[in-house]
């Protein structure tokens, strides 16, 4: 039943979202679009959590980060002023794009768990007829990757 054209559209959608990060104007923002790939892969990926540093225990990280185990190193530092605590992570060895996507999603989910106690769940949600058009499948691909992409 799977239509190869439609599943290809979803793949392209996922890839497009990755490429969108590189479309950024030079000098704008903090993405590593201009870094060489090895440097980009080694960058610390950082979220700031609104908790005092003594409430974020690097030895007892939320499950999504803990699941990455020894593959990542994690650094916890107080943020300036009232901003909370910075939680930074990166892989010890050269990661794949897929690995980095997993780390982004893990950092975001961990921040949510620390700040709100839950990770938002979205499905099942009410919706009508999902027409299987190439544009629709493209967006499905974008959405499926939206937690793993971005400038983080």
């Amino acid at each position: 039943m799977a239509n190869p054209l439609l599943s290809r559209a979803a793949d392209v959608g996922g890839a497009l979202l990755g490429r969108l990060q590189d479309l950024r104007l030079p000098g704008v923002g903090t993405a590593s679009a201009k870094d060489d790939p090895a440097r980009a892969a080694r960058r610390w990926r950082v979220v700031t959590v609104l908790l005092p540093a003594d409430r974020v225990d690097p030895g007892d990280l939320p499950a999504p980060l803990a699941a990455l185990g020894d593959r990542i190193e994690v650094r916890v530092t107080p943020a300036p002023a009232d901003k909370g605590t910075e939680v930074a992570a990166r892989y010890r060895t050269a990661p794949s794009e897929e690995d980095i996507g997993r780390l982004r999603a893990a950092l975001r989910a961990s921040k949510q768990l620390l700040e709100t106690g839950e990770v938002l769940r979205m499905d099942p949600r009410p919706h009508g007829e999902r027409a299987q058009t190439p544009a629709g499948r493209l967006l499905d691909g974008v959405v499926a990757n939206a937690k793993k992409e971005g400038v983080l």
Partner: protein
Amino acid sequence: MKAVTWAGVNRLSVEDVPEPQILNDHDVILKVRRTTTCGSDLHLLSGYVPFMRAGDVIGHEFMGEVVEVGKGVREREVGDRVVVASFVSCGTCWYCRNEMFSLCDNSNPNPGITEGLWGQSVGGCIGYSHALGGYAGSHAEYVRVPYADVGSFVVPDGVSDDRALFASDAASTAFTGVDLGGVQAGDTVAVWGAGGVGQMAARLSAIVGAERVVVIDRLPERLEQARTYAGAQTIDYTTTDVAAELRELTGGRGPDVCIEAVGMEAHSPGPQGVYDQVKQQLRLQTDRPAAVREAVMACRKGGSVFTLGVFASMVDKFPLGALMNKGLTLRGAQVHGPRYIPRLLELMERDELVTEHLATHVMPLSEAPRGYELFKEKQDGCVRAVFTP
């Protein structure tokens, strides 16, 4: 249940869809009593926010009755009559704690999309595309409201459904612009756009003490409402040079605060309008900024320009020189609902803020496609179509 869904560019349908469920402990399920069209929906409909999937339930300005409560909800109970903020806010991140609720770090489950577009993601919004989270919208019999303790507000007995409805988005958006745009007692405020948002910005400017309020649009019935309900002076931009009129009205100074409530599909007569249309169609710019340009040029030196109108990405021919040399402050924001809704409900209870006149067309959900047609084409004097599921 019945719901209004986006079926493709400029196509809506009314479909039978599954009912929403409690998915997180902080959720409530609302039985929708009133839900309305917003100018922002027009940008979705016409395809300028290209993150809609066929079958998505739309609608983000609404009120209703709580019918089910998640086990983590503390402040709401079954039976509460509530109005709900259109943006979703967790209440515990730094942005929420600092009352910048639409910038919530935790309420947009698809952050990768807007981080790519804007460098940072913003909060999610009910019924407003996958870029803002992919939440099912309120044009339905039931809707899920996440973080209900933060985003839903009990409507006082003295305030009708029809009035409270617009605290959800139009009036709270307007309050965001009036407050963060810095309107002060004695100011002259100019508002571009006499839709629900612009009219509320005009009225709230007067409430916080603006001495003179001027509303700019081309639709006579909307300008009439702005005069009647906001006590504003009005300018029809199709027959009058807006900047010249504003100079004359303000002793040559220009307005202290300029609030733009038009958005990325601004209409403009003459060559500028053609230029923007062509560039937008060719995707050389995503947005048509005619009203923002005019506001920047008209604003007094050292004044403030606030964009409430929604823009998606890039604009062209922006008068940055005027902004810089005149020492202007340019700000914008999506609505920080929970910061303003309690005060709006008080103003509504005291009859200082009335909103019912915006609901020019009230109809059942099944007629929503017709309601959107009237609203989009501004036919039959339509200011807002309101649906009663």
